[in-house]
C-alpha cells in the first residue's frame, strides 16, 4: 500500500461487498443431464435444453442441491425449507433461453457467515445469501463478430453474496481465499480460478470514516485471481477517493479490471438498469429440503477449518502460524489429525507438527507433490517421531532416517536396526569414550579449561566421531562437563 493511500485511509473508509460465483462439481448440469466437463470441443456438451430449443423444460439436479446445502450448513446459514427458482431476464448470446434460472425472493440460504483469519485473529464476515443458479456459455470476440460456445451453459453455480462489511482490499482477498479453501474443503468445487470455476465481482464504495450512509458503489468484474482482487480493489478505492477528494462524484457503474494495464475501465453504466423482470419460474415447483436430506448433509460434513484452527492451538498448543498452515488445506489437517491419533502419546502436538511441516512438507515441496501424494503414511511418521522422543535415536539421526524412509518406504525402526544407529545413552559406555577423547586431546582440554568455550564443540564432535554419531548429545555434554571440570 502506498503512503498516499495510507493517508487517504485515515479519512476515508472503503466499504466492500463481494459476489462470488462457484461452479459445483456435479457430473451433469443444473437443469439438463448434459455432462459437465472443462475444455471439451466447442458445443459438444449441449442437448435440446441447453440450446434453449422450443418445448424443452428444466429438471433440477439433486447433487447440485446437496453440494449447495453443504456450503449453507458450513456457513451456518438459515436454510429455507422451500425455496424457489426465479427467471432473470436479459438478452445476451451466451444465454440461450434469454433468461437465467436463478433464485431471487426465496433463496436457498441466508444470513450465514464466513470466518477469515486476519493477523492471527478470527474475523466474522456476514453473508447476505447463498443461492443456486445456472452458468452461461462463453462469448469470444473475433473482430466484427462473436463466437458462442454453449458447453458451459447450464453448469450449476452457487452465488455467495457477502454483506458490504469488508473494509480493506486485504480482507477482501482474504475472504476470497477463505471461500476458496472452504469449497475445496467441503469437496463441492475444484474452484480452479484459471478454469473460471470460482469468479468474483466486488462492489466498492467509500465514505468518510464514522459515517453511516454508504457512498455510491461501483461493481468490479473480471477478477480471476486472489492477487487481482487485492490490486483491483485497492485501485478502485484509490480511484474513488481521488474523485471525491477533488469534489467530484462517483458514477454508479460496472468496471472491468484489466490486469495487464493495472487499471479498470468503465462498462455500460449500471443506470441503464437491466430490468431483470424476476418472477418465480413456472416450470419449477418449490425446491424442498427435508429433514432426511439435512440429516445426511450434517453427518457428512468434515470438521471445518476455523474450528480446527482453534482446536489445534487450544488442545495441541500449536502456534497460530503453524495452525494456520495446517488448516490451509483439508488434506494437511487430516494428515495431522491422523498423526496425533497414531501417536502413543509421549510427544506433543507441537513436535509432531514440527516434523510434519518441516521434514515432510519440505520433502513433498521439493518434488512438487501435495500431501495427498505423500508416500509416507501418518503412522510411519508418528513412529519415527516416537523413536526420537523416547531416545532410541537422536534428532540428527532421525532426520537421516526420515529421508531414507521417505524414499524407500521402509519402516523407521527397521532402518535404525539395519544401520545400527541406535543412540548410545549408557553413561558407562559414553563415559569411557569421553575419557578417551579428553585424554587424547590434552592441548584442547587445557585450552577449554582456560576459557576457550568454543572448544566444547570440538570435544562433542570427537565423541560423535568415535560413536558414529550415535552418542546421546545430552548425556555426552553432561559427561564432558564433568570430565573437563566446567
Amino acid at each position: 500500500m502506498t503512503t498516499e493511500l495510507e493517508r487517504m485511509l485515515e479519512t476515508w473508509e472503503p466499504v466492500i461487498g463481494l459476489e462470488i460465483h462457484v461452479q459445483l462439481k456435479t457430473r451433469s448440469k443444473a437443469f439438463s443431464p448434459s455432462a459437465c466437463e472443462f475444455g471439451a470441443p466447442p458445443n459438444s456438451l449441449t442437448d435440446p435444453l441447453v440450446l434453449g430449443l422450443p418445448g424443452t423444460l428444466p429438471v433440477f439436479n439433486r447433487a447440485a442441491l446437496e453440494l449447495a446445502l453443504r456450503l449453507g450448513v458450513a456457513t451456518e446459514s438459515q436454510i429455507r425449507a422451500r425455496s424457489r427458482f426465479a427467471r432473470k431476464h436479459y438478452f445476451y448470446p451466451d444465454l440461450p433461453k434469454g433468461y437465467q434460472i436463478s433464485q431471487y425472493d426465496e433463496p436457498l440460504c441466508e444470513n450465514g457467515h464466513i470466518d477469515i483469519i486476519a493477523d492471527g485473529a478470527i474475523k466474522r464476515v456476514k453473508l447476505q445469501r447463498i443461492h443456486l443458479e445456472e452458468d452461461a456459455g462463453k462469448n469470444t470476440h473475433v473482430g466484427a463478430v462473436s463466437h458462442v460456445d454453449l458447453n458451459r451453459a447450464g453448469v450449476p453455480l452457487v452465488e455467495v453474496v457477502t454483506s458490504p462489511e469488508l473494509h480493506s482490499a486485504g480482507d477482501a482477498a482474504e475472504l476470497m481465499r477463505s471461500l476458496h479453501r472452504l469449497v475445496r474443503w467441503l469437496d463441492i468445487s475444484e474452484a480452479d480460478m484459471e478454469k473460471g470455476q470460482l469468479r468474483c465481482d466486488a462492489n466498492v464504495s467509500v465514505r468518510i470514516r464514522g459515517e453511516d450512509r454508504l457512498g455510491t458503489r461501483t461493481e468490479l468484474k473480471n477478477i480471476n485471481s486472489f492477487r487481482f482482487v487485492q490490486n483491483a480493489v485497492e485501485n478502485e478505492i484509490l480511484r474513488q477517493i481521488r474523485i471525491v477528494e477533488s469534489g467530484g462524484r462517483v458514477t454508479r457503474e460496472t468496471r472491468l479490471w484489466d490486469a495487464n494495464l493495472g487499471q479498470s475501465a468503465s462498462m455500460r453504466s449500471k443506470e441503464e438498469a437491466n430490468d431483470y423482470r424476476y418472477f418465480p419460474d413456472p416450470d419449477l415447483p418449490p425446491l424442498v429440503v427435508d429433514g432426511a436430506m439435512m440429516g445426511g448433509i450434517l453427518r457428512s460434513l468434515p470438521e471445518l477449518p476455523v474450528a480446527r484452527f482453534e482446536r489445534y492451538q487450544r488442545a495441541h498448543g500449536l502456534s497460530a502460524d503453524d495452525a494456520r498452515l495446517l488448516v490451509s488445506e483439508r488434506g494437511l489437517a487430516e494428515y495431522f489429525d491422523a498423526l496425533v491419533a497414531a501417536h502413543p502419546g509421549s510427544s506433543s502436538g507441537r513436535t509432531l507438527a514440527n516434523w510434519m511441516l518441516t521434514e515432510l512438507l519440505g520433502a513433498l515441496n521439493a518434488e512438487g507433490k501435495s500431501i495427498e501424494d505423500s508416500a509416507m503414511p501418518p503412522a510411519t511418521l508418528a513412529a519415527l517421531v516416537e523413536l526420537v522422543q523416547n531416545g532410541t535415536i537422536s534428532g540428527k539421526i532421525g532426520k537421516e532416517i526420515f529421508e531414507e524412509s521417505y524414499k524407500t518406504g521402509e519402516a523407521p525402526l527397521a532402518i535404525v536396526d539395519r544401520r545400527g544407529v541406535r543412540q548410545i545413552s549408557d553413561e558407562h559406555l559414553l563415559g569411557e569414550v569421553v575419557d578417551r577423547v579428553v585424554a587424547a586431546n590434552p592441548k584442547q582440554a587445557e585450552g577449554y579449561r582456560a576459557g576457550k568455550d568454543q572448544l566444547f564443540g570440538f570435544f562433542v564432535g570427537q565423541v560423535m566421531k568415535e560413536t558414529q554419531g550415535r552418542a546421546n548429545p545430552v548425556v555426552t555434554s553432561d559427561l564432558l562437563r564433568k570430565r573437563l571440570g566446567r
Partner: protein
Amino acid sequence: MTAYWSIADTVRNIVSGEITATVLVETMLDRIGKLDDKLGAYLTIDKAGALGQAAAIDQKRKAGQPLGALVGVPISLKDNLVTKDLVTTAASKILDGWVPPYDATVVAKLRAAGAIILGKTNMDEFGMGSSTERSAYQPTKNPWDTARVPGGSSGGSAVAVAAGMCVGSLGTDTGGSIRQPAAFCGTVGLKPTYGRVSRWGVIAFASSLDQVGPITRTVADAAALLQVICGHDPRDATSLDTPVPSFREALGGDVKGLRIGIPAEYFGGDIDPQIRAAIERAVAALVERGADTVDINLPHTELALPAYYLVAPAEASSNLSRYDGIRYGKRVDATDLLEMYSKTRGAGFGPEVKRRIMLGTYALRSGYYDAYYRKAQQIRALIKKDFDKAFRFCDVVLTPTTPTAAFEIGAKATPFEMYLADIFTLSCNLAGLPGISVPCGLTDNNLPVGVQLLGKPLDEATLLRAGQVIESAVGLGDRRPPGAAS
C-alpha cells in the same frame, strides 16, 4: 365411411386386416388433398413419413407382432407440438422451416401406441388467439361455414377432425384453445388437469396454463387418446406423479345422482339465445337421465379475464425470449447485436404476439410485478377457491363453452373483443382444472354449439362419463359439415 371412422373402428379394422394402414393413409391423404385447399387446416402434410409408418405397421401385422392401442390411427398434431425431423413452426415466421431434433413426449407416446402422424395443423401463432386468424402462414376456415373462423388457437386440429381429414388430433389449451375451436367446429375437445400430460416438447406459451389434450369426433375417442398421452414424465417437473385411471371404464356409465353445478355468473346477458337454448336442452337431457342441478356461485369469475391476460402474456414474454435467430429459426442479420435481436424478433413475430410480449414485459417490470403478475396469481388462488367451495355441492360445473357460435372471419375488430371470446374457458386453466366441450346441437344457421363441463382436479373420468351421455342424447350424431359430408 372411412373418413369418419372412430378410433375403435380404425383399430379393429387394421387388426383384423379389413384394411391396411397403407390404404387407410392413402385414403386420408387423398381426402386432405381434395378438401384442405379450401379449408387450410394443415400446415405440413408428411406424406412420406405417414406412408412409411403405415408400411411398418402393415409389416408388423403380417409378422404377427404385437400392435399398439392406437395402431394405424391417423392423427394430426397442432404445430406447437415438436416432431422429430418434421418441420414445426408454431405457425410463426420466426420458426419458418425449423426441423426439430427430438419428439415431444406426447408424440413419442402416440408413435409407441402405433398411431400414424399425418401432419401438423394450423394454429394462432404461438397459441395466441381465438380464431386461428393469427397464423403467420394461412387462414383456416370453419367447414360448417367457410366464411367463419374455426376458433383458436387449435383451429387447424378442430377442422381436420370435423372434416374427416384425420381420426383424431392433439391440440393445446392455455385459455380455451382446445375447447373453444372444438365447440365452433362441432367436435369434442378435452383439456386435462394441469400436470396430467407432459409438456416436454410443447412449444411453451404460458407455462402454468398450457396443457395438451385430444380433439376428436366422439367422447370415446377422446378417452382413447387421453389414455395414451397421460402420465408422469420425469422430463417435466410440473407433471403429476399420480396414477392414471382407466378412462375406458368411465364410458357407458350413467349420470344418476350426478350433481351438476350451474354457475349464475356464466349465464348472464351476453350469451346468444340459440346457444342458451342448446345448453338448456343439454341440461334437460342430463336431468332426464337422473342428474340433479344445483345453483352455485363462482363470485370471482369476472376477474378471470384480467387475471389471464396478465399471467399468460407475462409468462409468454419470458418463454419467447429464446427466439433470437442465434441457434435456430429465422434471423434478420445486422452488424450490431442489439439491432440483430430487435429486427429478428420484430420481423419474425406477428402483431398479436408482439402485443402480448409487450404486455407481459410491462407486467413483469420491477415496480409493476406486485401489482400485476403477483396479484393475478393471487386472483387465481381465489378463483380456484371458488371452485373448491362449489365442488362441495356439485360433481361437475356446466357452462356454455362460448358466448356465441363461430363468428365471421375478420369480425373481431379490436384485440380486446377477441379476448372476450374466451370468457367461459379461461377459469378452467387458471384453476388448473380439467374441462371438456361436447357438441350439443346446431344453431338455426347450422353452426355447432358446445357445452362445457368443468371437473374436480384429476376427475377427467366424470367429464367423459357425463359428456358421453350428453353426446348420445343431444349430440350431432351423423351430421357432418357441408362440403365435407362425404
